[in-house]
């Protein structure tokens, strides 16, 4: 009898448990389903630019209730590498530095996006060739372009008119001649207004942005450096040094010491102390904000006199975005990366806000892009098939830094024999890449 009673109590308890579970489950299940995945995105932008990015992400957030996106700004490559190493990397990372793609893809620090792209039928062909190149390394596409930086010539129309120049230079000879004509010196020979400052290291003047205009090549098919073998490098460096010497190297250094910071309202071009300048497309927005009355124009960089066909092209690099290894929400992270990098509306919004070049072929001609004659120059340079970028190697930014190091020695007269200097530089670059890969890696 006691056993029967115990069994009845046990059955009743079980029944209550089942009913309770059944009653609670309808409430619990929707909660579990609707709990959005929290994604964290690290980007390099800060201040006003960060708010533009956040606005675009907020739109994505609104249309995708399954995720909430937290954006963190002011991130650089050191922070990205440290976080990946510590296993605390966010779901999505973005870097201003496309030069380090070799580091991220080569080490597996950022995951290969190719399988995800194939699954969603995203073809790399939707991006221009240069951006396709700087988002992969050795065939591993671990990044996608998120807006590009394109470089061209800014010229001051008021100073041009005063000097009797009617159009921007198209060849290096014209650039040198115009630079000399536009330069104003003090009685003691110091430079008051420079027609053009050719010093490597000044503002945006780095070798890779110049060599495009000479059609120069960096490496042969085996990945070996060929700076001493490609005559374009000798031609560019000789041209550059002759213009530096015309000014006097020390005169230019002294001139630069008196100029304002590049990213301030006292930027030399904006302040009228430079008649022409090599700069990125973002300067359009800076001028609009800081010196809206400046009478200026934009044009592609002049090219080597022997290669007029290169006119219209330019140098491209830009912001990249990817997914760090060991991420917990790869599917959601990929959906966000895909949206930001391939959706024409998102790219147009970012481009309008940041005044950087939108990175797909379709977005470059999107009607959503705010029309601006100054900015349009850079979109044309971006879509020009002859536009190039710098080599992506295992050494990352150290590769181009070494070339710049050589150029700064050269312009200061520290390199006695250019050809033997370039031969030595080739060896150093090859050794650098070999060292970055580590022995035994082809």
């Amino acid at each position, binding site marked *: 009898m006691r056993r029967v009673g115990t069994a009845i109590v046990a059955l009743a308890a079980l029944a209550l448990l089942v009913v309770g579970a059944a009653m609670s489950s309808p409430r619990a299940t929707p909660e579990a389903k609707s709990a959005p995945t929290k994604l964290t995105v690290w980007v390099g932008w800060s201040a006003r630019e960060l708010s533009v990015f956040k606005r675009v992400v907020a739109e994505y957030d609104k249309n995708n209730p399954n995720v909430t996106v937290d954006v963190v700004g002011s991130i650089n490559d050191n922070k990205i590498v440290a976080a990946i*190493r510590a296993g605390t990397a966010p779901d999505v990372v973005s870097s201003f530095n496309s*030069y380090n793609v070799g580091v991220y893809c080569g080490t597996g620090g950022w995951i290969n996006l190719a399988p995800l792209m194939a699954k969603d039928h995203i073809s790399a062909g939707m991006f221009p060739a240069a951006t396709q190149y700087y988002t992969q390394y050795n065939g591993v596409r671990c990044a996608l372009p998120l807006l590009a930086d394109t470089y061209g010539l800014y010229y001051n129309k008021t100073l041009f008119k005063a000097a009797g120049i009617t159009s921007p230079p198209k060849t290096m000879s014209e650039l040198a001649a115009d630079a000399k004509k536009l330069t104003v010196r003090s009685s003691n020979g110091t430079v008051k207004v420079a027609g053009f400052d050719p010093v490597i290291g000044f503002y945006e003047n780095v070798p890779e942005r110049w060599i495009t205009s000479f059609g120069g090549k960096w490496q042969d098919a085996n990945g070996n450096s060929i700076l001493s073998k490609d005559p374009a490098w000798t031609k560019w460096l000789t041209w550059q040094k002759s213009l530096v010497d015309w000014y006097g190297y020390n005169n230019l250094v002294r001139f630069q010491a008196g100029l304002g910071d*590049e990213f301030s309202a006292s930027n030399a071009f904006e302040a009228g102390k430079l008649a022409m300048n090599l700069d990125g497309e973002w300067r359009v927005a800076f001028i609009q904000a800081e010196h809206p009355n400046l009478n200026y124009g934009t044009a592609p960089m002049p090219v080597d006199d022997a290669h007029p066909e290169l006119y219209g092209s330019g140098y491209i690099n830009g912001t990249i975005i990817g997914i760090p290894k060991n991420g917990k929400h790869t599917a959601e992270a990929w959906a966000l990366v895909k949206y930001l990098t391939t959706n024409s509306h998102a790219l147009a919004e970012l481009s309008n806000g940041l005044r950087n070049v939108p990175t797909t072929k379709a977005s470059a001609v999107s009607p959503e892009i705010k029309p601006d004659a100054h900015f349009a120059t850079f979109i044309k340079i971006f879509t020009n098939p002859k536009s190039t970028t*710098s080599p992506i190697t295992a050494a990352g*930014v*150290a590769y181009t830094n070494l070339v710049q190091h050589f150029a700064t*020695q050269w312009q200061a007269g520290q390199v006695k024999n250019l050809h033997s200097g370039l031969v030595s530089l080739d060896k150093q670059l090859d050794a650098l890449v070999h060292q970055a890969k580590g022995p035994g890696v082809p």
Partner: protein
Amino acid sequence: MSQSSVAGERLPAAALTVDRRRARRKAAWRRRGLVALFMSPWLVGFTVFFLYPLVMSAYLSFNHYDLLAPPRWVGWANYHYLFRQDPQVWTAIKNTLWLIVVLVPLQIAFAFGLAVMLTRARMGAGVFRTVFYLPALAPPVAATLAFVYILNPVTGPVNVLLGHLGIQGPLWFQDPHWSKPSLVGLGLWGVGTIMIIFLAAVLDVPRQLYESAELDGANTFQRMRWVTLPTISPVILFAVVLGVIQGLQYFTQAYVAAGVAAGQASQAADVTAVNLGYPQDSTLFYPVLLYEHGFTDFQMGYASAMAMLLLAVSFAVTLVIILNSKRWVHVAGPAR
């Protein structure tokens, strides 16, 4: 007395001895445990912050390690690149040697000179002492920024003043011939800490030694040469060792000065590595290059090899100075 009775008397004594030994050993272990317990904060700190990084650094120096992929053993490859292929390393070594050879003696001479002058001040010694010491309190970054702005070739007050005198001032931090001397100037300006140590040492020289020397007819220079300098020689040794080690580790001022003097962006907004050593590698010191390889090129294995070389050189140089010091450092105290 039978043997058994003797043995019977000895047994308790032997047992007692064993017990005492055990108790003593136990007490000794307890003492050791207590000592270890008191030492444990230092032991943990030493192991975590010194021993482990040192051992790891030595290990990584034989590895290819880019911070993202696991370390890969490469034997002596990093050292081979360091001694045979790195195009900037010898420049960095030369710059570092230059700094040590020029800055350390100048700092010691300047600090000693200031200390001697302060001992002779009749009025306002406290004020002067404070004035000369104050720069040592300025953070290195702030002090360097101030120096770069003061020595700006166009807008800096030094060159503006020289301009009024009809002299075109040098390019200072923008000129490879003037950048290191400018850093030396910065080093001399912040010499307060060594000056205070010298001041204490000079004031500590027994007065009777000067009186004896004076009675022997020694003039001011001779008193300085034969009394002051030998007496404070241990302090000079300390200043030399400290200066040399600081010279081998010279980083902050060079890093900040190069970045500010270069004053431009490089290939990417957050990459400043290309400005390290500006102008023309003249401020590229060994620790700056080590930082560049480790933290901007992400070659931590190679940077570890550089760190190992720096450690070996620091150790060797310090050893040489200390061994050599026996010839010129006067140690006070009873004869041994």
